[in-house]
């Protein structure tokens, strides 16, 4: 092996494929679905389901680049529009549920999957969730309220969709009692009670779901029903730890989403500056650089730094290397860097930066969520800190 930053032919091909889709399908409707919050972007959903989901034509004679390629694809789509990307019909947020539940079929209408974890009183502290699952007869009965379910409308309301619900089967067992359950769309007892109005990513449906004696068959529990009462951080509880491990895969993807938005902002900024005859000079002496040039160069460095951390975390997955630390590093860096970049671009562009005539203001709003969901900046700092200090979760709270 040797250090290399050369994209594979497959990665280039995928990048170009999704970039074209971003330019032709996403950008033209990005503003409309930001304004028409909660409206289903039918043309995008149908297009993606028909043409996008199978991906680019792949040349199997050259190597694919696994998760790195996934990150490159996600960056392109979110360069197009992060909110529409999130609204894509996909089961991926349902994660492992796809195979187990067998609800995902190749043909037919678009299908969404959603994860229902967060509750009004339990966000980052997922071990504190209150939704209960009781075994009754040969069914699980779910009761509780779930908020911030991305794709929650599609997953709960449209035929073929499904929601993966986290619930406790034994509150006294703490984390060990938390299990996940597949709830197919339209299951009686599962109600869509609201869609959040948000700062950004407005085309993405963020649902509140109410579970009132919602019954699902016994085999809709994912994994084992067995409850481990001991401290799961010490015994290696597979249920909770397994759920947490999915973050090691999803955090680089969220980082890539952020990077796509950041790059969109920087590209726009560069174009607008060039229209005014301003070119960024990389070979000018320090004292001659304008504030705009300094800011721009620093933003480029920050964005590339985040991208490389993200690719590294993805590359580690490709090689089966544990990447808990590196995944959190990439997410923490990308979430914050892109939040700052998109804000700075609004500032640099002056009055037109704040105007809805351009997308800069939208991207500033869209970017911020990347520093919040899939583990806030602070949660990822905490994970990194524990790893580099070699502290357990009980030693560094």
């Amino acid at each position, binding site marked *: *092996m*040797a*250090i*290399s*930053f*050369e*994209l*594979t032919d497959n*990665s280039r091909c995928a990048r170009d494929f999704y970039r074209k889709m971003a330019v032709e399908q996403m950008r033209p409707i990005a503003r409309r679905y930001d304004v028409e919050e909660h409206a289903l972007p039918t043309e995008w959903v149908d297009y993606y389901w028909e043409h996008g989901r199978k991906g680019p034509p792949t040349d199997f004679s050259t*190597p694919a*680049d696994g998760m*790195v390629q996934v990150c490159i694809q996600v960056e392109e789509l979110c360069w197009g529009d992060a909110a529409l990307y999130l609204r894509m019909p996909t089961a991926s947020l349902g994660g492992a549920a796809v195979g187990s539940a067998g609800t995902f079929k190749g043909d037919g209408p678009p299908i969404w999957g959603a994860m229902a974890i967060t509750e009004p009183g339990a966000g980052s502290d997922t071990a504190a969730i209150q939704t209960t699952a009781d075994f009754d007869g040969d069914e699980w009965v779910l009761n509780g309220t779930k908020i911030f379910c991305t794709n929650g409308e599609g997953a709960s309301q449209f035929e073929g969709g499904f929601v993966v619900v986290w619930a406790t089967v034994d509150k006294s067992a703490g984390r060990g009692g938390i299990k996940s359950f597949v709830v197919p769309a339209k299951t009686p007892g599962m109600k869509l009670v609201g869609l959040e109005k948000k700062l950004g990513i407005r085309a993405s449906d963020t649902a509140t779901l109410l579970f009132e004696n919602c019954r699902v068959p016994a085999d809709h529990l994912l994994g084992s029903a067995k409850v481990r009462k001991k401290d799961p951080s010490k015994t290696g509880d597979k249920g909770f730890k397994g759920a947490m491990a999915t973050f090691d895969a999803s955090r680089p993807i969220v980082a890539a989403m952020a990077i796509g938005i950041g790059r969109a902002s920087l590209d726009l900024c560069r174009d607008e500056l060039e229209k005014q005859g301003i070119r960024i000079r*990389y*070979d*000018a*002496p*320090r*004292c*001659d650089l304008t504030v705009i040039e300094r800011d721009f*160069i*620093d933003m*480029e*460095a*920050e964005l*590339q*730094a*985040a991208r*490389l*951390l993200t*690719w*590294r975390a993805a*590359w*580690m997955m490709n090689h089966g290397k544990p990447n808990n630390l*590196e995944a959190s*590093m990439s997410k*923490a*860096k990308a979430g914050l860097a892109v939040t700052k970049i998109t804000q700075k671009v609004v500032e640099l562009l002056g009055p037109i930066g704040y105007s809805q005539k351009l997308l800069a203001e939208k991207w500033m709003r869209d970017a911020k969520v990347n520093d919040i969901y899939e583990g806030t900046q*602070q949660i990822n*700092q*905490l994970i*990194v*800190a*524990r790893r*580099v*200090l070699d*502290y357990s979760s009980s*030693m*560094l709270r």
Partner: protein
Amino acid sequence: MIEFEPTEEQQLIVDTVRQFAANEIRPQAHDAAESRKLPENVLAQAHELGLVALGLDEAHGGGGDRSAVTGVLIAEELAYGDLAIALAILSPSLTGLPVTEFGTDPQKAEILPALVGPSFCAGSLALIEPDFRFDPFRPTTRAALDGGDYTLRGHKCFVPWLDSGDHVLVIAMEDDDPQAFLVPRNTKGLAATPERNLGLDALPTVEIELDDVRVPASARLGGDAGCDVHSIIDRGRIALAATAVGVSRAAFEIARDYAKEREAFGAPIATKQAIAFKIADMAIEIDAARLLVWEAAWLLDSGAKATREAVLASRQAAQVALVVTDGAVQVLGGYGYIRDYLPEMLHRNACGYTNFETLTLI
């Protein structure tokens, strides 16, 4: 394919240099700075390792490995030991590498054998000028043909000036083009004055005045073809950025270890989020800067121009070094301000990354 793992051969070099830095360089860092004197034995030992010779011309006794990636891996590890000592160890590269890349055969025969000889022989580069408007691509020092000779006029600073060297490579404008000239240190008209700076205490550096310094036309690096000063500066910036990552890593480790040992209010301060998060941020930024450096070096190795990437990597690494070493001083609290502990020196050294441009090469 995107890869983040050095070759086995590179890893072997990294492991060797890392051990050398920890066992031989670091223990001498403090005393070297306080006494403002390089530990001679370390220079000799490092010379034995052949780290600089590795990149020099094979036909003249070098290793012929011009990989910039290998270069940044070595530079980070050495600087992790100590920046001043690392720059001293690497100083032969300041003349050796440009001569290897651009030199004529007679220039190689004149310069390189000493650098790969039995004992350590320093090199030197005079690029930076003591003016806040300094532009590395357009220095104010001028070179003009006069008869068959070049005459050099100008003022340089931050010029490494170790005892053992005998040449300095001077960057000067020839008409509208920056070029490099091999100048024997004892040439008439060249006056060197030792400097004292904010940091780098152990590294001897000088300001030099070039007052109609005459050198033969054959002193022009590359002869008639000349050399590409832009490429030398790109390499220098990337090399220096690699050392910034090493300095940052040193500061990070000291802060991390101290925070786990030092107790306040009944627990190690590292168990407080205010400290733990600072340490987490340091770790993230150091890794990020390293990857930027690697990418820029990889780009050089691929034969592409890397001016933009060198600027991004060096600005980022400079900023990270400043923040991380300042953070280390802060984590150590009062002890961070005391010279018996290393963070204050690391911080003073790191402050120079915004000013140095090029003090070493890969």
